[in-house]
Each structure stands twice: as structure tokens, then as C-alpha cells.
């Protein structure tokens, strides 16, 4: 149902997952790129025509020379929306991809109809000595694992069991995430001010025990956008698309139909 394809946007070659029919659903991955064996894109393809690109440097997408800022990614995702056929686009972003989706939606796009943000990062809520987002690069891998997964033994990456190609993909994701999001760490100091510009219905979804970025942050995030409603999914942390794919796909499906 989901095919792994290549597409070119603004001259930039991207790996992209495609599947399903109907109104387009553009899916922006989080800290880890999506693959065709992930269940979630297949489930979501039951609700629309899914287009899920890997950002440059992530997964199987090469990164052009000097393409290394959030600014580049926002422009690319706007160009991606231009390239997607269909009138009523739903833009879905997880975590880091949620940040990008919020940036794109705040800038506006003529065919953007709905926005879904799943455990997004991207804004600063608390005071300067209180980090909102766990530092996945500076804290111990064991702490990050506990914070990211409700059931780490079942879902967290196990490098000893993974094949070489999957580890290389993981390392590419990690490097690209670090390149784009190191400083300021995982947020744009000005995005918070502009979030109220988002003019489309918005669903903000949170893993109810997310330890990377808390549901309280999610509530505050949703509160900055008058068109947003906030939902949580039980028994998952930072990756509802991996730990609770059926519930998340159903929630987004019903939002798309609403």
C-alpha cells in the first residue's frame, strides 16, 4: 500500500513514501525518518493520499551542499506543498517535523486545509533555566530512551539487533537532526509570536507520558493557536506513531473527515 519513491522538489532529490487516495496528507517525520515498513503511513493511507518525504540528510534523502538550516527546510516544505496535487492538503508533523509544519502553517499556504501536530517541538515556553525539551544530544542515551518510549523494550531501537543499513539510516537521522536543531536547541525563539497566524483547523496530539517534551508544553502550544484543539493518547511517550499507530491514525482520520 505504501511505496518508497523518489521525487525532486526545487531541484532537491528526496526519498518519499506514497500511498492511498483522496485528499493529500503530507507527513513530516520527527527525529527519525519513516520507512515503508513503518505501520503508521500505511494506516494513514486509509484516510487520504499520503506523501511522506525524508528531509535532506535524513533517511535516504541526500543533503545538498550548504543546505543546513531550518530556513532551508521551511522553504523546502513550502515547495513540497506546491508540488503535491490535490486541493485540500492536511499537513501532519511529528516532533521536529511538527516544528516545520507549524512554521509552514504560520506562513500560510493557499491549499493548506488542516494541520496536525504530534508532540511538536519548536517554541520556548518556560524561563531561561528551565528546558522545555529534553536535550537528546547532551543527556545520557539511557535517559533519552526512558523519556522517549512508554515501552522501550518493545519499541526503542536495539542496535545489536538492527542490520547495518538500518543503523546507518538511524545515524544519518541523528546527524541531520543535530545539524538543523542544535542551536537554539529545538526551537525558533520567534515562532511562538507567530503561531496565532495559523488560520486552519489544527489538531495537537500528545503522548500522555511524553518525557522528551511534556503534555503541559503541548497544552501551551495548542493554546497559542485559536484554531487548535488538544488531544492526548494514552500509553505512549514521544512516538505515538510508533507506539500507538492505530489510535493516532484513527484520530487524524476523523479530523481529516470533519
Amino acid at each position, binding site marked *: 500500500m505504501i511505496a518508497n519513491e523518489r521525487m525532486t522538489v526545487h531541484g532537491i532529490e528526496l526519498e518519499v513514501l506514497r500511498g492511498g487516495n483522496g485528499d493529500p496528507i503530507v507527513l513530516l517525520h520527527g527525529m527519525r525518518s519513516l520507512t515503508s515498513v513503518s505501520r503508521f503511513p500505511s494506516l494513514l493511507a486509509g484516510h487520504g493520499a499520503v506523501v511522506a518525504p525524508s528531509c535532506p540528510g535524513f533517511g535516504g534523502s541526500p543533503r545538498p551542499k550548504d543546505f543546513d538550516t531550518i530556513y532551508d527546510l521551511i522553504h523546502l516544505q513550502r515547495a513540497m506543498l506546491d508540488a503535491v496535487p490535490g486541493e485540500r492538503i492536511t499537513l501532519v508533523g511529528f516532533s521536529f517535523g511538527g516544528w516545520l509544519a507549524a512554521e509552514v502553517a504560520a506562513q500560510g499556504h493557499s491549499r493548506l486545509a488542516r494541520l496536525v501536530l504530534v508532540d511538536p517541538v519548536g517554541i520556548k515556553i518556560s524561563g531561561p533555566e528551565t528546558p522545555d525539551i529534553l536535550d537528546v544530544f547532551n543527556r545520557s*542515551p539511557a535517559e*533519552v530512551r526512558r523519556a522517549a518510549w512508554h515501552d522501550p523494550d518493545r519499541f526503542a531501537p536495539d*542496535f*545489536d539487533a538492527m542490520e547495518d543499513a538500518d*543503523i546507518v539510516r538511524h545515524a*544519518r537521522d541523528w546527524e541531520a537532526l543535530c*545539524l538543523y536543531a542544535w542551536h537554539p536547541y529545538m526551537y525558533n525563539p520567534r515562532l511562538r509570536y507567530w503561531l496565532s497566524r495559523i488560520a486552519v483547523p489544527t489538531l495537537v496530539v500528545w503522548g500522555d507520558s511524553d518525557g522528551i517534551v511534556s503534555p503541559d508544553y503541548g497544552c501551551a502550544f495548542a493554546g497559542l493557536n485559536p484554531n487548535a484543539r488538544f488531544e492526548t493518547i494514552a500509553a505512549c511517550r514521544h512516538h505515538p506513531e510508533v507506539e500507538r499507530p492505530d489510535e493516532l491514525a484513527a484520530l487524524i482520520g476523523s479530523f481529516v473527515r470533519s
Partner: protein
Amino acid sequence: MQLWFHNENTYPFVPQNILDEADSVRASLPGHLCDPKIAADLFHECMDESLLCDDLGINIVSIEHHAGINSLYGASPIVLGALARQTRNVRILSQGTLISIRQDPVRVAEEYATADVMLRGRLDIGFVKSGDSEMASGNANPVGNLERFWEAIDLITAALKNQDGPMRWEGKHFSHRHINLWPRPYQQPHPPMWTATGDPDTSRELGRRGMVNSVVLRGIEGTKRAWSAYRDARKEAGLPEPALDRFAYAAFVYVGDTDEEGVSVGSKLLWFLNTSLKQAPQFSKFLPGRMPPEMAPSVYRTKPRPGETRAARPADGLIGMTAEQAIQRQIMFAGNPDTVTKQIMAAYETLGGFGHLIFIGRSGYLTHAEAEKGIRLLAKEVLPRVREMARTRQPAVAA
């Protein structure tokens, strides 16, 4: 041959059980574990050791590391400034301000120009790529570190050379609209430039630029790889063969009255390897950008698969080393003056010669008195003989 004293001003006085429990002895140990009164004593002892070197004709390396027991020299330019005023004779190599974690290379150029003027032209500038826990301490993105490193060097060089009024820099990582150093450096067009690296690709670029390539604690094989790359790159670029003063070898050195004393006191230096290198996995094996993602399978797994070669940072191979192993690998020269002379010359011959020997002469629990004794014996009993031998021998360049 020039001799350089290198002392990282280590702080070994954190209880071992705390070090054992910590996942990293760099970057993250709480500041309350560092007693500023002890630190003050250490700073003054280390400064006195440098002044002794100044009297004995041994050049001095001024280094920088951040937030760990391995070194108290986080504010490196301050120490360089003190050395600039207090020494009178020898050259000072700042190796160096960690330029890829400093936000403004123009400020670094100002510091270096000022130090060179205070030193009346006795400054050498060494660049260090940095990495691992320094990225956290310096708030510097580990991805793209090398690209920033070279742009910072280009900018610092341009700023030091500029004498024609305000200049501008609009690069990828750094921009500055009004660069105009006062004072400009004492040495023209700028002080000699070095880089510490064992990475052959970096050495190739040093070769093309003609900078000094110091190699720190990489032993013979690692040093050969770097210097071969340096020489090859110059040849490929049609540049003349480098003189020996383009190469610096760095090792632990301790000279005692007897071999037993040299080895037993010298082995205290290995604290640096065995205790102060420990870094948490997020600062080492999982730090993005420190190696290509294609190498991740052999780094990320807890144990290699059958037939898989383990990839590791160079420092990993140094942890847990005994004095005998360190001497055998030629990263430590220790013994009586005759023995140390022979050990240094053996490395010199094997490597095809080098113009500079950097010796790490104090670390860990090696005391101030022991350090000064070793420095004196090295300067008086070893250095003249090594210099004479190096002058009369023309070693073949190692293949």
C-alpha cells in the same frame, strides 16, 4: 630540534568513587567538586613550571580544555596573557583556543595579536579541532565542526594580516563588518601557525597550507599516517618538500636519575589516559558528526558482529595503558637520561625526523617537585644530546 613543555593543569583530586560513578569526567562533574583554593595552588605551580622552562630554554605550550578533571585551562587566553608577561625568553605556543567553539574568531585574532605584541613576537598559534564533550561545554554544533574550523582559521589569518583599515568578512559561518586589529601582531605577516591533528585528511590540508602538524599521543603509526598525508598533499600540489620544522611529535616524558625513578614517576602521567579521558556515550560514540554515519554499525553496537572491525575514537585505544605499553608504543619516553635520549632518537629515526618535541611533563598525581626535577634533567641531560644527534643525522623519511 625545539622542545616544548605541555602541561594540561589537571585536577585529580575528585574522589575515585565519584569518578567511577560518573558517566563522564569531562563536561558534567558538578563544580562543587573543584576546590578553588586547590585550583589556585595548581595554577601557580604550573606557572612556576613554565617559568622554570623559560629559564632552561624550553618552549611552552598553552592549552585549552573545558569543564573537566583533565584540565583547568578553560579560559585559555587569560593563561596565555600571564605567560606573555612573566616569561622572557622562550616561545609560547597557544595550542590553543578552541576556535570552532568560539562564536567570534575576530575576538580570537585580537587576543592572539595582543599576546604576540606582549611577547614581542614569541607567539606561535596552534589550532585544535576540538570535539566530544567540548561541543557540549562550548555549545557548539558537532556537525559542521570542521567546516567552521577552517573558516575560522581563514578569518583569523586575514584579520591578523590586515593592516589597511577596516576589512569585512561575510562567510558561511562568520560575518563581521568592521575588522581592524589594534595592535596588529608583532610578527609579520602573522605568528607561525600550527594545528594538532592525527587525521590524515586534516594533515593534507595542513600540508597544502604549510602549517606545522603536531600529533599528540598517536604513537608512531598514527603519526606516520598523518605526516605521510602532509607530504603527499604537498607533492601533489607541486609544493616543495616540507622542512622538519613542520612536524611536532607529542608524548609523555619523564626523566629520573635512574630508569626505575623515570618509569615509576613517569607512569603517574598515565593518569591522563586512564582516568581523565572517560566521557559519556552522548559525548563520544553517539555524538553526531564525529564520524560518517556509514561507520555507525561498528560503533553503536555493544559488541561487534563476527568479522566486523571495531571503529573507535583514537583515545579509546589509550585507556587502561601500563607504563610498559606506553613506552613500547612510543607515546611515553621515561627512564634515566641515557634511556630517554635513546627513546626519543628511536622515535625520531623511525619517523624520519621532526623539528619539535612536545613533552607532557606533568599530569594527575605527579607532583610539582617531581615535574620540576624531570624538566631540569630533560633540559640539562637529554636536550643537548638529542639536539646534537638530530643536527648530525639526516633520517630517511618514513614510508
